[in-house]
């Protein structure tokens, strides 16, 4: 693969063309915060945590969907970016009802980890306290909309990897919600294969296996990434 020169955070690098900024950063141990990104499923650039500054561009661009180009000068850790990462994290927490104290994912939650990483000790913006449902109709799993951050990993893994298209998104703006089929109970789904991929890629306590108690959720997110990788190998 052809190599191109570029600079990330002052470090000169030779990288493969055709890769995204996020891929290149990972290969070079440069930490980029992500939430909607998940190894093995398509990127949508929605969470805005991976925004980077590129010299010569006034817009901030998401590392997950922006391809590297020769002689780019990329910054991933400016004060502005850090400030925005923190606001994004605060908005995540304020949008729905994240009651860590009673959450199955407490202690094993990507949203909590994000909060610790950006040093969020409190949310400065008013909590929205929306009314959100908990769907327990599925025999094995629970969907708790209170904990959902609309990263849409479940939607994408269900359509791209499993091919079932059980999940979708309804409404728009702050009223968006993940839906199963016709916004019908998950247990009544005609498309769900109960494959558990969505449960394993969910970053928070929104999707979890039944009979899990507070703080006891165990996930296996690698399962999906490895599955996708093995499929590509054509063994």
């Amino acid at each position, binding site marked *: 693969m052809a190599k191109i020169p570029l600079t990330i955070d002052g470090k000169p690098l030779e990288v493969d063309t055709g890769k995204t900024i996020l891929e290149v950063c990972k290969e070079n141990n440069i930490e980029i915060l992500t939430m909607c990104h998940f190894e093995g499923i398509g990127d949508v650039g929605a969470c805005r945590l991976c925004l980077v500054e590129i010299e010569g561009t006034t817009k901030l661009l998401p590392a997950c969907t922006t391809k590297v180009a020769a002689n780019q000068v990329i910054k991933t850790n400016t004060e502005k970016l850090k400030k925005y990462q923190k606001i994004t994290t605060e908005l995540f*927490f304020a949008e729905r*009802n*994240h*009651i*860590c*104290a*009673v*959450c199955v994912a*407490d*202690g094993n939650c990507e949203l*909590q980890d994000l*909060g*610790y*990483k950006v*040093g*969020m*000790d*409190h*949310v*400065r913006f*008013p*909590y929205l*306290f*929306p*009314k*959100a449902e908990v769907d327990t109709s599925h025999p094995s799993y629970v969907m708790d909309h209170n904990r959902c951050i609309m990263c849409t990993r479940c939607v994408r893994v269900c359509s791209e990897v499993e091919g079932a298209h059980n999940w979708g998104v309804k409404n728009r703006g702050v009223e968006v919600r993940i839906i199963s089929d016709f916004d019908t109970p998950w247990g009544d789904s005609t498309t769900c294969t109960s494959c558990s991929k969505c449960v394993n890629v969910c970053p928070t306590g929104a999707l979890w296996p039944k009979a899990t108690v507070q*703080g006891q959720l165990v996930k296996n997110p690698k399962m999906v990434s490895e599955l996708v990788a093995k499929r590509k190998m054509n063994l």
Partner: protein
Amino acid sequence: MKKKLATVWLGGCSGCHMSLLDIDERILEVVKLADIVKCPIVDGKEFPPVDIALVEGSVTSDEHLQELLHIREVSKVLIALGDCAVTANVTGMRNYLKKEDVLDHAYVKAVSNDQQGKMPGHPALLKLRDKVLPLQEVVHVDYAIPGCPPPADTIFYVLAELLNDRIPNLEQERKLKYG
């Protein structure tokens, strides 16, 4: 001069105070530098001017609101202690329901043997507000220590820094804990 310290219990379960007690013998270091002048277990009607106020719990009633406004006025440093004070936490879980429905469920519909299914209405009872609010949505908060309960080590760290006239920095991963 010794500093003055107060701890307050608003809408919470007192778990944060338990965690405060979990600093164990280090409480002796705290009282070397500060007098605890007001505390749920210290008798005293007035809330005197203090250097540091540790406030547990969220604002759930009119009484809490008045109390908090007073504390803000008489405290140099106000610390929100624990998830209820910082996020509304479990106490805030009634925010997506109607207050009347919640009370109805608790006092009228619930199986109870002391109220005969009646809503208590004594004028001396505190009045619940429609929405439970974390402290920073009501007054300015100087420091927030999240956690349900917050780790004893973090509580002690913050107190020790402030009592020694240093500025605590909570924006470090190991100091923060949610839930």
